[in-house]
């Protein structure tokens, strides 16, 4: 894995390398878990939006925020923070939440090539 981090546009595996050393298999496990988490987020957030379950969206978003920082996906983490704060505000607007959700999904799609590269 060493030296690969610079080649990623959307994530930065340097942090994982710091924690995991050269254990590529472990890093891949983390990436698989990250993809699973994001897929759950995509699946569940839309339903929660329809039900206007803001706390549930905030909780989901919190998970992807910390996990995104671990893999150096800073844009996605920042967007998740904005959404989490919005969902914890007094009266979140459906339209605003939709915009953030769409942005997070878009960022996730953009990360896929990088994530797949780590798994290759």
């Amino acid at each position, binding site marked *: 894995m060493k030296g690969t981090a610079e080649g990623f546009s959307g994530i*930065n595996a*340097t*942090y994982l390398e*710091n*924690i*995991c*050393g050269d254990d590529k298999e*472990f890093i891949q*496990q*983390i990436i698989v*878990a*990250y993809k*699973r*988490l994001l897929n759950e987020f995509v699946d569940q957030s839309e339903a929660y939006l329809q039900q206007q379950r803001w706390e549930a969206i905030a*909780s989901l978003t*919190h*998970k992807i*925020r*910390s*996990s995104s*920082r*671990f893999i*150096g996906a*800073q844009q996605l*983490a*920042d967007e998740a*923070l904005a959404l989490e704060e919005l969902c*914890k505000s007094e009266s979140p607007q459906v339209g605003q939440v939709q915009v953030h959700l769409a942005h997070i999904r878009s960022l996730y799609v953009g990360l896929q090539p990088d994530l797949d590269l780590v798994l290759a």
Partner: protein
Amino acid sequence: MKNLLFNFRKASPAHPLEDASEKPSLFAVRDEASDSGNQLPFEGKGGFQNWYERLPIKVLIADDTEINQKLLSRTMERLGYECTIVSSGQEAYDAVMRDNFQLILMDLYMPGMDGCEASALINEDLEDEAPLIVAVTASIFEEEERRCQESGIVQFITKPFRVEDLEACLVKWEDELRLRIKE
């Protein structure tokens, strides 16, 4: 004793690999450890000392996110600890009631009983016998910081943490942790 242990750091959402000079809050823990009178250990093979040989404590990780569990566990492994992992505040409370842990690395956001609630309950029930509780969190809002203080959490470490952050935590609380080891 709890009040004396309060020593919070402002959370920083920044990546730890960024310029440390711009992120004093995250690195304050490390700096303070160096000034505490406890010396950072000599590096062992692989870069980190086997802390378990120096400080044989039982560590509980409470976090409901698989990635966080794995990374925290791996980080502590590099310091010589095999941790017990639970996924909720209730499970953390139950584990502490069953077994003698000296340190809990506690996530704040968990389903059901959250990290603050669990910490408050543990400190209330076990008083001076309670393990030290360190919150490991992505960031903390003002209201949550107040809840942490009231629940008896002694410090928080910001995600994404590094091995050095956990090592600095051990250095900082080494004496307190040693007091909790039962013969």
